[in-house]
């Protein structure tokens, strides 16, 4: 793994949503959608993010793309801290001061690695005010660059394409705005992009309602592709499609990945699709990562009881396949009031006393295999 380049690094990402009530809309509670999540995505790989509804998988994707602003945490893309790109300038400065300057003044410079080291060198070279000026300049260009790097394919192809505008405009709007393509090139480029995803080029003058669900999803993919992104976040991109259409879109996405050296964050609730698509799998439960491992590791030897239960819950289309059913009791608790200790302990078949008191940290049990459990592998 070491020779592969890290494209996205997420550090301690937190996203809380306020619940407001009363006449003055005061904040009465927080939905802890994503609570201290860290992971990396390497260039050219597919990371599968799997979990049930309410586990925060979509919020991770949305926060990564900055369709939500993170509550705290750091999102590093292409070895640049992008966290402050979408903040107002005074907040951005405060963020830089807190995250970097204070650290640089206190800690031993020889311990810095990665982005910290890069920014420390910059700080040494330019001084404090030069450091701010450098990082806070040209934010609009940086934002645009960020948008070009990361794109999304949504779940519902019926609501993600504007019904009032033609396919040509839908597909070319973003790339023209971000100057990826020139206005004069639109027709040729849109045609090429559509044909690449298996839609007839002449259909660019049609409206979304003239296409079926699978075709619309292809159009959504073409729209992302034309931005020339490095990372595509696919949020349940095949969940709304019929079985026979789903395999077409899955295969298309894999072909495009090979051709364009794309990186995918593939978000899904369906472990079988995740298994087919991904190189590495992250399992989330109630705002936390419970397991993160290569596909082979995870499916050969899942260590977290939740992962194991999730696997046994997937119906296997083979009546001769004998498997041990692990049926979890109860429902997923609310992320407003998550259980103490390990968030999975009220449903966990192997929970002990410590599980309700102490929160297990995500630790590397085997090389590249991370699990957040006090008793990994105890559920057989």
């Amino acid at each position: 793994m070491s020779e592969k380049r890290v494209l996205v690094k997420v550090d301690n990402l937190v996203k809380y949503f306020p619940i407001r009530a009363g006449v003055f809309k005061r904040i009465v509670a927080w939905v802890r959608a994503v609570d201290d999540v860290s992971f990396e995505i390497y260039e050219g790989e597919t990371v599968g993010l799997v979990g049930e509804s309410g586990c925060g998988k979509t919020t991770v994707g949305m926060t990564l793309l900055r369709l939500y602003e993170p509550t705290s945490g750091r999102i590093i893309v292409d070895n640049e801290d992008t966290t402050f790109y979408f903040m107002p300038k005074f907040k951005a400065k405060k963020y830089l001061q807190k995250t970097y300057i204070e650290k640089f003044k206190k800690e031993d410079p020889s311990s810095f690695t990665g982005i910290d080291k890069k920014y420390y060198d910059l700080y040494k070279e330019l001084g404090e005010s030069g450091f701010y000026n450098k990082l806070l300049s040209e934010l609009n260009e940086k934002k645009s660059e960020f948008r070009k790097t990361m794109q999304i394919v949504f779940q519902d192809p019926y609501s993600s394409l504007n019904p009032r505008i033609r396919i040509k405009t839908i597909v070319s709007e973003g790339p023209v705005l971000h100057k990826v393509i020139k206005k004069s090139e639109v027709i040729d480029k849109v045609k090429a992009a559509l044909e690449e995803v298996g839609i007839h080029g002449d259909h660019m003058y049609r409206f979304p309602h003239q296409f079926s669900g699978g075709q619309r999803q292809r159009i959504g993919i073409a729209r992302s592709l034309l931005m020339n992104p490095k990372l595509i976040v696919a949020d349940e991109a095949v969940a709304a499609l019929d079985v026979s259409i789903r395999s077409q879109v899955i295969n298309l996405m894999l072909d495009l990945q090979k051709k364009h050296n794309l990186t995918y964050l593939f978000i899904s609730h369906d472990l079988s699709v995740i298994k087919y698509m991904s190189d590495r799998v992250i399992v989330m439960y109630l705002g936390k990562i419970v397991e993160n491992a290569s596909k082979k590791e995870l499916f050969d030897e899942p260590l977290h009881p939740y992962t194991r239960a999730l696997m046994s819950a997937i119906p296997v289309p083979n009546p001769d396949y004998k498997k041990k059913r692990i049926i979890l009791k109860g429902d997923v608790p609310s992320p407003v009031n998550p259980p103490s200790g390990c968030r999975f302990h009220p449903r966990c078949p192997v929970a002990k006393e410590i599980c309700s008191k102490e929160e297990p940290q995500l630790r590397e049990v085997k090389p590249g295999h991370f699990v957040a459990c006090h008793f990994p592998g105890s559920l057989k």
Partner: protein
Amino acid sequence: MDKKPLLQVRNLKTYFYTEDGIVKAVDGVDFEVYPGETLGIVGESGSGKSVTSLSILRLLDPNGEILEGSEIIFDGKNLMELSEDEMRKIRGNDIAMIFQEPMVALNPVFTVGEQIMEAILLHQDVSKNEARKMAIDMLRKVGIPEPEKRVDEYPHELSGGMRQRAMIAMALSCRPKLLIADEPTTALDVTIQAQILELMRELQKEYGMAIILITHDVGVIAENADRVVVMYGGMVMETADVKELFRETRHPYTWGLLNSIPRLDIEQERLYNIPGIVPDPLHFPPGCRFNTRCEFADERCRKEIPPLYEIKNGHFSRCFYYKKVEEAQKLKKAGESA
């Protein structure tokens, strides 16, 4: 099978008359359900699987019509010949149904208990107090914690899984002989789906009712059905015992479907693609409904609708070239073992 079927559907045709033309949602469907068994109906959207189940209960929209000549024989009675009053006595009593989205199927302004009691009071000669007791017992049976408290709660106070349990409690409160479950777990998370399917298996064992399980998920079918009907374009494409269907597939559509799903139990190189799109029910192709997407289709398939061939006892396939599917399967098996 020498048992007498509980339900026999013969030549069922349900058409909808729309402004754009006639939608032949179900076009000549035959199957039987035997007492105590689970019949799985699998198909994609627009295959007619839901309309089939609604036709059995005669719960169609006003623009839908079950055509003359269709027969639905339940327990010796032809449901097509019953009056609306007689039909009402069967719905919820002998045949009950659970739907995909429990939030839509439950009435939001009545408590769960009131809704279960309504069904009991309608079909059984009991007092209100007894009905309430029975409702609480049912809720306990379907695994709802603190049923004495939950009975007075409204649907919005329950989680999705609990709502589906309440729906099952309601459906089973009159001990139906046949339960029709239309995508009962599609709206639920997988761990909750596993709970609900387990519950349905347990209750079936206890009550001995037959279940028609309608779903698009081949995995759910494999794990829960005894026999399977595969539908496409309003017609039955293949029907067989569940093990036979997966081992000895004899229809190109079933074959494509089974090979196009990602699976946990085996390693897959590349998923099979069924080319093309699901046909619009307003404009089905002439001949076999699957001919536009089929690898084996030729002139004959584009002209004639193939009959249901009986390949073995109880295994039917609507394909002229079912032997070619057999060969394809042999080739694949040889490839896998090599």
